[in-house]
């Protein structure tokens, strides 16, 4: 069993480093602002979101039909389709294909699914040299970390730290931190890896049932370079990535990059239908890993609409200040806090509370997942299952009793106002009370609203 994630404790190091926390907050807000500009440039933005949501709702409802249609068409176009029950099964399938080709070196482009399955570690344990080719992913891979964001994997790392990492692994000049210089160094380093790669592994942004094709979106061109040199391409996808028709891409390609990074579209939107030629292979691995169970839940099914744009993270006031690693999950932020407890309620029970219920995530989500409603729904489920610590449960029980009794409520108000007036400052501001480290208590009002109402309105 996994250790329990206590988000406040896991976030502490990041949050208590005010420089890093503020810098991270501002970097993500910058991305969010770019997103806003792009969204505002299209008068039909809300119409697109609504349509995307409807397409996904329809697809997830009829998932079995579209999966089979996709499989039939992909096979007809020469692809090989594999079905994986869970992460371990997925990893075995990929390793099996590598073994069939006696492959030792693979180049990978960004795929949150393979992160979810822990593919890199599994392959490395089996003697395979795995090279992540997305620059951000390569940075975290060289540092022995995991991505802290699903679109911007190295958003938590400063350029000086990237410089140190590259100095150590790629031999760049000591102390060099110019992004242009470092990117150029990575380009040279990864070119040699691309040329040596024997099999290319990619994720999938969209799979099209009516054509059997898959679509991969990148800015760097790494998915394309990684799959157009080797003869074998393995594409790994969650079963929720399906779209019924090619024309549905019109809606999703307009939403994805605008929501993710504030670009009108990614530099490359590549459509693969079948293998490259008669001498090549395209393997598509369809992964369930808990998705069919998520589909059964009326409350959380809409989370399957997610196109992994990361907009909910960029806007989340908690994520921006606490960093992606504080969630201890492959997918962090609001959508991660919805998805993770569906995998393991006990391990991730604190994540639905890493949220102020401000609702900003729901507002920016391009496929209209009601994220903050789902986070609230999770809290209801977790409380019912007694998965909260005793201290919180007891406090909630007492609050509930207080709010149900007009007498107790009035009394508590009176006590509070009096206490604010008469208690000395040190009674509230001392080392045991962490709530008052950076704030003063409010000035007590002279009278309660009830008193005021009785005087002025009640006749």
């Amino acid at each position: 069993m996994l250790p329990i994630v206590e988000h406040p404790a896991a976030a502490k190091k990041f949050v208590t480093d005010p420089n890093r926390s503020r810098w991270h907050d501002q970097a993500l807000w910058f991305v969010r602002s770019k997103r806003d500009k792009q969204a505002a440039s299209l008068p039909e933005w809300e119409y697109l979101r609504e349509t995307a949501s409807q397409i996904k709702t329809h697809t997830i409802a009829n998932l079995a039909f579209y999966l089979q249609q996709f499989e039939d068409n992909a096979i007809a176009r020469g692809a090989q389709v594999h079905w994986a029950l869970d992460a371990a099964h997925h990893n075995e399938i990929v390793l099996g294909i590598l073994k069939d080709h006696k492959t030792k070196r693979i180049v990978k482009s960004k795929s949150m699914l393979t992160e979810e399955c822990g593919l890199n570690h599994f392959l490395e344990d089996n003697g395979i040299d795995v090279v992540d080719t997305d620059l951000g992913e390569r940075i975290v891979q060289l540092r022995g970390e995991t991505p802290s964001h699903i679109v911007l994997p190295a958003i938590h790392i400063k350029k000086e730290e990237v410089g140190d990492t590259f100095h150590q692994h790629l031999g760049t000049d000591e102390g060099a931190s110019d992004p242009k210089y470092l990117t150029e160094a990575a380009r040279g380093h990864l070119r040699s890896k691309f040329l040596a790669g024997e099999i290319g592994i990619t994720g999938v942004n969209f799979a099209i049932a009516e054509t059997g094709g898959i679509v991969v979106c990148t800015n760097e061109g790494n998915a394309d370079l990684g799959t157009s040199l080797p003869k074998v391409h393995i594409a790994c996808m969650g079963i929720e990535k399906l779209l019924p028709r090619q024309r549905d891409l019109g809606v999703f390609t307009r939403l994805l990059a605008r929501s993710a990074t504030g670009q009108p579209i990614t530099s490359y939107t590549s459509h693969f239908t079948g293998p490259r030629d008669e001498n090549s292979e395209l393997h598509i691995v369809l992964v369930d890993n808990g998705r069919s169970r998520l589909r059964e839940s009326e409350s959380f099914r809409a989370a399957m609409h997610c196109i992994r744009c990361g907009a909910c993270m960029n806007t989340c006031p908690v994520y921006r200040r606490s960093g992606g690693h504080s969630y201890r999950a492959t997918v962090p932020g609001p959508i991660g806090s919805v998805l993770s407890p569906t995998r393991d309620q006990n391990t991730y029970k604190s994540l639905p509370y890493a949220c102020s219920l401000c609702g900003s995530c729901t507002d920016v989500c391009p496929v209209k997942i009601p994220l903050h409603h789902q986070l609230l729904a999770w809290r209801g489920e977790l409380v019912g299952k007694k998965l909260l610590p005793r201290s919180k449960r007891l406090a909630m029980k007492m609050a509930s009793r207080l709010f149900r009794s007009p007498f107790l409520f009035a009394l508590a108000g009176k006590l509070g106002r009096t206490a604010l007036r008469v208690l000395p400052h040190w009674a509230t501001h001392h080392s045991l009370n962490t709530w008052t480290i950076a704030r003063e208590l409010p000035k007590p009002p002279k009278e309660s609203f009830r008193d005021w109402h009785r005087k002025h309105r009640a006749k």
Partner: protein
Amino acid sequence: MANMTGHHSNNTDARQAILDRINTKQVTAPALPDVDVTRVIVFDDPLEKFAEMLAFVGGQAHVVDSASDIKPILDQIDVFRDATRIVSLVPEAISGTVDATQVDDPHELATIDWTIARGEFMVAENGAIWIDGDSLPHRVLLFIAQYLAIVVPKSKIVSNMHQAYEQIEGYQSRFGVFVSGPSKTADIEQSLVLGAHGCRKLQVFIVANA
């Protein structure tokens, strides 16, 4: 098919298990919606919008009368004048120095300086150009060249991605890609750097009499 061993089932069993799990929960949902084309943006001057968006994504647009006007413009670019290995898929504009159709192994194209490719049509809203994989002897040519130029007829332009997918409805190529600007990354502190893995710069030639 991969050979599965151990406690896991084979592909047919896994397939059936996943489909069964899905089929045990019947979910009703509305029909698939179609995009109402009267509700999406269409530009009065799509070409102007295209040039604006191409500049925004880091590419450069050149409107020329005919294919023969392309070489003089490229000749003004240092890295083109100095280039020795050029693959041209648009021979009426540029005669290349490497014949990619004679290359078997795409790895041999690793040192290509320039690729001159043929674009099918432009998309105004995002500066993208559709490239049909069948026009490429090796698809790696688009991604491995240090610099990329795309030649596209001026009349072939749509406003938005809905119209773009109408254009390629039913296409049968094994590969096709919308290219919008040069390869780029902002993975180091959100600093935009052009030329990540693919082309460092992108020139687009929009030919009036094509």
